[in-house]
């Protein structure tokens, strides 16, 4: 088991280093470059200013040295400061992480809490109208992208006079009820799609396990259908479900960019978008790497869960 964890961990670190290097090099390839972003188009015309700037930020060093410096600081939690406001990026990341994590957690909670039971029911009742209904609904929600759903929800809520905020954020410390109210629409915009995904995967996985010989054995030895489902089917069908929940984290991070923008939530996604739109390199760099890191971390946890659920994987 320890060897398994270490191998996976090394892989995760390699992937993360690759990502941060790609992001770093990409940032240096941006047209106009650092000088234009800092000094404006006119300032970038003056060689002395550019030289000064390059000297100050170490931009004359070889790329790999610059990357090393950035990486060293990043590992200590220092992502530099914003070019526009000169505020500390790490500070801003800390302030905003909570919003995005709450959004992702609530969406995951809904997708597992609703998607898994519905998927199991559909699989057990294969071929019945219940199954067809669940599947149809799943495919429908899967096909409405988050930005379309978010827009439709805002329209629906505002024309029907439903008292839910369509914009802005209330922190948990201010008001728990206000916070949850503000999160309803964003979580629905993101969560319905992931619920549909989890439901489909659960259904397929359970349907496959139901055909396994060991389920027939369990039935034949006289276990009630409920016990068979509870004790044998669900455990056997778990792996694909865990995978998809892990993969959904990546989707949620992408979705956070859009949903936070639509509903004006001060989270990491909106910060990333702001960094890109304002050509604020350090922000863009920090948020993209952080987003990828969160996804890699969730994949790593998924790998560990696998090994825990299915001992065969540990010894491969």
């Amino acid at each position, binding site marked *: 088991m320890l060897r398994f964890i270490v191998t996976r961990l090394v*892989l995760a670190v*390699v*992937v*993360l280093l*690759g*990502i941060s290097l*790609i*992001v770093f090099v*990409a*940032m240096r*390839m*941006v*047209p106009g470059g650092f000088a234009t972003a800092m000094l404006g188009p006119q300032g970038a015309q003056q060689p002395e200013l550019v030289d000064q700037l390059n000297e100050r930020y170490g931009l004359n060093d070889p790329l790999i040295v610059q990357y090393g410096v950035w990486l060293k600081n990043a590992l200590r939690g220092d992502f530099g400061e914003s070019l526009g406001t000169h505020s500390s990026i790490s500070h801003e990341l800390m302030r905003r992480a909570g919003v995005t994590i709450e959004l992702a957690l609530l969406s995951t909670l809904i997708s597992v809490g609703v998607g898994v039971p519905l998927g199991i029911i559909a699989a057990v009742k*294969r071929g019945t109208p219940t*199954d067809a209904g669940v*599947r149809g609904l799943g*495919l*429908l929600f*899967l*096909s*409405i*992208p*988050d*930005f*379309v759903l978010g*827009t*439709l929800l*805002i*329209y629906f809520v*505002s*024309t029907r006079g439903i008292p839910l905020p369509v914009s802005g954020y209330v922190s948990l410390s201010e008001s728990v009820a206000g916070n949850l109210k503000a999160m309803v629409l964003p979580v629905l915009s993101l969560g319905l799609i992931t619920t549909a995904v989890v439901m*489909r995967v659960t*259904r*397929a996985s359970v*349907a*496959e396990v139901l055909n396994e010989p060991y389920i027939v054995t369990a039935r034949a030895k006289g276990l009630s259908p409920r016990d068979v489902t509870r004790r044998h089917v669900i455990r056997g069908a778990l792996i694909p479900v865990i995978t998809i929940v892990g993969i959904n984290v*990546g*989707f949620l*991070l*992408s*979705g956070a*960019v*859009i949903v936070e*923008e639509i509903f004006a939530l001060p989270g990491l*996604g909106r910060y*990333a*978008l702001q960094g*890109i*739109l304002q*050509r604020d390199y350090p922000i*863009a760099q920090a*948020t*993209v790497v952080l*987003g*990828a890191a969160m*996804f*890699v971390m969730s*994949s790593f946890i998924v790998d560990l869960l696998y090994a825990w659920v299915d001992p065969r994987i540990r010894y491969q």
Partner: protein
Amino acid sequence: MTDSALASPAATTATSSTGDGLRPRPRGFSAFVRKSPLGAFCLFVILFAIAFALIGPFVGTGNPEKINPLSVFAGPSREFPMGTDYLGRSVMARLAIGMRVSLLIALLAAGLAAVIGAAIGLVSGYAGGIVDEIIGRLADILFAFPTMLLGLLIVMVLEPGIQSLVVTILVVTLPIFVRVARGPTLGLKSAEYVIAARVSGASTRRLIFRHILPNLTGPLLVQTTFSLSVALIAEGALSFLGLGVQPPQPSLGSLLRDGKTYMELAPWTMLFPALTLAGIILAINLLGDELQGIIDPRLRGR
């Protein structure tokens, strides 16, 4: 499985559902319609959408560029079946043009990803060893980028526009094709019929193109279908954020962006692009599901 594989490699996916191989199975489009009426209907919807995108502006939807100052935000009427936008332009005509842009980007990007990704996957699976290992790790790295963040990064380097949209979609969907092509190639390269062909002196090129690739067309086709919907969503999302197709050129995403701004005044400017986008994606997903069911009956209804 091995028997049918030995008999006719290209037909394994096609005959596996009948199994006996005695009756010649009906092939082609009529077989598809009979086997999956729903899939055929979805294909019809998609073709209709493409036809509307191509000829829409020429048949009674009005001129997409024409500004009508006297009928700004006019509701749906005989003259403007889907109403007009903030400049009094026909929403229906702009929808047709927007669909043309969105569909073109999606088809181009998903098609490129399928060809390039399949090629990489084939080489990776066939070569094995260190090549396979390196390609696998690179694919992992691409996989680890959340779509939107990768899109933002590419937009920042390449400037917003159609070019960066295509690159983004390509990079996002590429690793999936690599995996789809690589897996079966690993198994097929040591399948008996491939070994038999190699022993009888077939070149590597012939082995790959004649004996392995035809067995991948099914999964690749299904993946291409799903990638089309991924592509439409990515285009829509980036254009919705103002990072994709730039005005005055419309796309489904940018139409929705404009529509959202004015949705309380003129809901039709938002609703038509929103429902069109969701409708096309639904048709594509359903078609993909049906194709998957035909190719691999075990997965039916996944």
